[in-house]
């Protein structure tokens, strides 16, 4: 096996090139054709330049949102799979997405408004909902144990998922038809954010989460051996688990508040990357982040062009492409 530094360099170069390619090409495709010369034509005022507006208001924020959400969901998936030592774990396993959905839904159904702040309330409410879910699960998992029981974490998370889903149905009962439709649409995920504000708002969380992920690579490798073995090798297991749980949950909450609960990325991308680069988290984490970004940007580009001018929900595309591709890779490797 090649030394870590070489593997890391190869993975980052390969997946990085893919991500850069995605970021550069995605803004060039869409339901309408634009001319790059006119996009960057400074002689026309921005407000009178539809090409520039399509590029800078419609496509660029959307591509960046895809990169951010894809990277966060994919790396959160890696962290949750490592933390729970369960290959089926996803960023949404521990109730984060259900909590976020409940928050968004309450905001949509009851028309909560922060009009005086002039900002949309659904993303904030969804983030608050995910925090609530994370908090409850965390308290349950630490309540009767000295450490953080991953079994309790998993069971509590799954139960919270079911409980929040029931609450969602309960609230949905009071929603009118148009609201129900909007909630359903929110659940399918959507990256058409039409401004940079959601990205800027999420940025502190993104920075924090990725800093934590960078620190987590080695602890996750040790946790893979089991908590006790990791402890004997000098890892503060409880602290590592806490950091993993909180950072991955925050990243998921932030990603969902920007793009809605886009499924499949958090499970397909990490496994795909592991099949290609091995199980070492020091390589898997950056590679998953880069590939997650490229994958979601690509899926979104397909979603908005394949039936243009109509647009498919991006969550549908991630599942339709991710599922079969993943199975194919699985069978080929086996």
């Amino acid at each position, binding site marked *: 096996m090649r030394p870590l530094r070489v593997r890391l360099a190869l993975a980052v170069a390969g997946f990085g090139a893919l991500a850069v390619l995605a970021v550069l090409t995605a803004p060039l495709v869409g339901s*309408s054709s634009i001319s790059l010369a006119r996009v960057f034509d400074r002689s026309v005022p921005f407000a009178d330049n539809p090409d520039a507006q399509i590029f800078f208001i419609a496509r660029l924020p959307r591509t960046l949102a895809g990169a951010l959400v894809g990277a966060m969901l994919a790396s959160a998936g890696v962290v949750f799979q490592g933390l729970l030592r369960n290959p089926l774990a996803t960023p949404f396993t521990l109730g984060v997405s259900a909590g976020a959905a409940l928050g968004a839904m309450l905001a949509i159904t009851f028309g909560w408004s922060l*009009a005086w702040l*002039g900002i949309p*309330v659904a993303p904030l409410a969804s983030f608050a909902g995910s925090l609530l879910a994370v908090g409850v699960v965390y308290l349950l998992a630490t309540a009767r144990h000295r450490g953080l029981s991953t079994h309790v974490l998993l069971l509590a998370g799954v139960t919270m998922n079911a409980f929040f889903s029931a609450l969602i149905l309960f609230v949905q009962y009071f929603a009118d038809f148009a609201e*129900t439709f909007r909630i359903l649409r929110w659940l399918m995920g959507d990256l058409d954010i039409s*401004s940079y504000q959601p990205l800027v708002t999420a940025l502190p969380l993104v920075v924090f989460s990725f800093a934590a992920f960078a620190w987590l690579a080695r602890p996750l490798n040790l946790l893979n051996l089991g908590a006790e073995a990791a402890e004997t090798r000098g890892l503060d297991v409880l602290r590592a688990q806490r950091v993993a749980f909180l950072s991955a949950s925050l990243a998921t909450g932030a990603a969902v508040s920007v793009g809605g609960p886009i499924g499949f990325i958090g499970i397909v991308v990490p496994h795909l990357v592991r099949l290609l680069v091995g199980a070492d988290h020091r390589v898997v984490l950056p590679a998953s982040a880069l590939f997650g970004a490229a994958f979601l940007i690509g899926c979104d580009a397909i979603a908005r062009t394949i039936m243009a001018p109509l647009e498919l929900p991006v969550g549908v595309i991630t599942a339709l492409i991710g599922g079969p591709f993943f199975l194919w890779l699985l069978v080929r490797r086996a």
Partner: protein
Amino acid sequence: MRSIWAIFSVTLKSADGAARRHDGATARRVHSVFLEEAQKSGTSSRCVVVPSWLSPWAVLLSVAAVILGGTVLVASQPQPRRIISLIPAVTEMLFALEAGDRVVAVGSFDKYPPEVEKLPKVGALLDPDLERILSLRPDLVAVYGSQADLRTQLERGGVAMFVYAHAGLADVTTTIRELGTRIGADARAAGLVRDIEERLASVRRSVAGRPRPKTLVVFGREALALRNVYASGGIGFVHDMVTAAGGDNVFADVNQQAVQATTELIITRRPDVILELRAEPLSRDAEQKERAVWNRLGSVPAVRNGRVYILVDRRTVIPGPRVGEGVEVIARLLHRLPW
């Protein structure tokens, strides 16, 4: 000579004489339609109206009709006295047809006319309350075509239904006529349809020859953001209303009722007017903020020229008897006509 026969159960009978006279009119209309068919196919036909208590004998009577050689039997059916409507548009139609006193319950979202506020609410499209519906012992329930479960259950319970589906503007008058026939208010329905058609014609006359603004009609979006913007596609009654009001729907080419209008699509289609239809009113401050959300799309003519309108008017979102007024409201906005 071949003979044709049929049993019709379309006429409506009630205790009062007015309705019985109406019975006769409906029977005659059915007969005249039938006669036309008969003449076309070279057969003969006669019309006999039989009272409703003979309806159970329909099979025997139809055999008799065959023997008699081409007799149309028009079996009368009791007129519905206890009507439930789960559909705002049909509720408005029932009241406009002066059958409001026969409506015993309405859907959860019914708000017009004001009388419905006092009536029991028995659910709507997604959550019809079958038990309450049955407990009110209706003899006619207006349901959506898509309410398959409810329809099966009502059928099992032997409750007559008026099945409704949203369609185009032209279907509003068709529905009114059908409903009129069903509840024995043909004449009222004809008058109502005439009123609507006159109103529409007068709007069409007043906008004829004027430039047709390209219009984006928004049904809904996320609050204070241009996210999940849903707009009218090229079919459906809202599209028809805008067309009748002298506008060109920017999504006329999309063969769907609703389009998810992405930021890119909105910029590309360059609407001259953006019309947001809402069912619930907004405060003045909230309305201003919601309108300002569009400002970032400065290249869109509607935004640049300050022609983004938020319209809170149920007449423009319910395909009921007030569609004519709804089209007037839209036409005034699109063409800046005086109120």
